[in-house]
């Protein structure tokens, strides 16, 4: 890029890129805040971070752009997704406001804060900029390395200590010491007999011959679904499919088709219309 030209405005290509990707970044950020499910928020945030990586590259921060993709979208967002999978079983966000009017006040103060920040930037009269052509002359990575290992070397070493502390801290926080011995299968079965609750193995899910998926509760003799047949995790997530009504509907359709095939007169008005069509 010509340094003379770069002093007042960027290239048209970069402007186009900024306006298109900037819109994507803002939409992604808004979706992060307003999506109901934590997984969707995480994916939108990952999109925003990738867009920011492109902006870093456009601003001449080649090293940071790659690090952003590797560390943020690669490591941190995947860590978020892991925790969402661990914790998110009952991740429904409560809509009840603990403090009355808090949401509205938060929106208003957020708006005010945004106006304040943007007006502050608008007040600063910046018409020309230096550009990184000179600083990046020997390569961006070399430039950053020469600064990190001379001027910022102490902060860099402290960072190492911080990372080790964080790793140890995470292990301490999530590690659970087992205070009592795990019960064996024999003890568990004896416990069940003593309680007299449910002795045989749990019934299998699925309605045989029509469905056999694990999320479909098996039907009891009277046609009601039995919750006992579905795995506990699915029960907690509320992901049980109830097909007891479906089976009756299928049966009804089957009977109607048989009647049409045999050209019998059906009793209902809808059935008679169908049989006329079939006779044509």
């Amino acid at each position, binding site marked *: 890029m010509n340094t003379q030209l770069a002093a007042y405005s960027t290239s048209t290509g970069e402007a186009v890129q900024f306006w298109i990707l900037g819109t994507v970044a*803002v939409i992604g950020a808004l979706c992060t805040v307003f999506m109901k499910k934590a997984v969707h928020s*995480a994916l939108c945030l990952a999109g925003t971070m990738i867009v920011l990586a492109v902006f*870093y590259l456009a*601003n001449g921060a080649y090293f940071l752009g790659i690090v952003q993709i590797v560390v943020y979208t690669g490591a941190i967002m995947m860590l978020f997704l892991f925790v969402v999978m661990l914790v998110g079983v009952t991740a429904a966000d409560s809509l009840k406001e603990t403090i009355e009017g808090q949401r509205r006040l938060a929106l208003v103060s957020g708006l005010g804060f945004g106006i304040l*920040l943007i007006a502050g930037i608008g007040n600063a009269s910046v018409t020309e900029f230096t550009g990184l052509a000179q600083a990046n002359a020997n390569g961006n990575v070399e430039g950053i390395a020469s600064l990190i290992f001379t001027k910022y070397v102490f902060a860099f070493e402290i960072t190492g200590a911080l990372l080790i502390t964080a790793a140890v801290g995470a292990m301490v926080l999530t590690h659970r010491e087992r205070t009592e011995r795990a019960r064996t299968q024999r003890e568990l079965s004896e416990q069940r007999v003593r309680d007299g609750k449910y002795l045989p193995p749990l019934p299998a899910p699925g309605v045989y011959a029509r469905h056999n998926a694990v999320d479909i509760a098996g039907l009891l003799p009277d046609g009601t679904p039995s919750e006992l047949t579905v795995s506990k995790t699915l029960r907690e997530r509320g992901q049980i499919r109830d097909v007891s009504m479906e089976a009756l509907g299928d049966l009804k359709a089957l009977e109607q088709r048989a009647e049409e095939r045999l050209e019998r007169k059906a009793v209902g008005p809808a059935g008679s219309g169908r049989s006329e069509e079939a006779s044509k």
Partner: protein
Amino acid sequence: MNPVNYLYLAALLFTIGATGVLIRRNAIVVFMCVELMLNACNLAFVAFSRLHGNLDGQIIAFFTMVVAAAEVVVGLAIIVSLFRSRHSASVDDASLMKL
């Protein structure tokens, strides 16, 4: 286009993140909004680095990233252990020091 527009974008993203922290109840989403704010600051640092023509801004952004990584590890560990003791990731439920 003047690179100051990157600063406007950073301010906008920071505001959205801050509003999200205030609005949302789910601890994980609140944490994601904090990450969004950190990223907005990084964008501002990188843009300033270009405006001033030296690499110090990029180095600060790099350190921010490292600290954010450490923060995410510890924060998510806290959320997981909170969820284990309370069976909920809502920030409202963590209002007591003890169970």
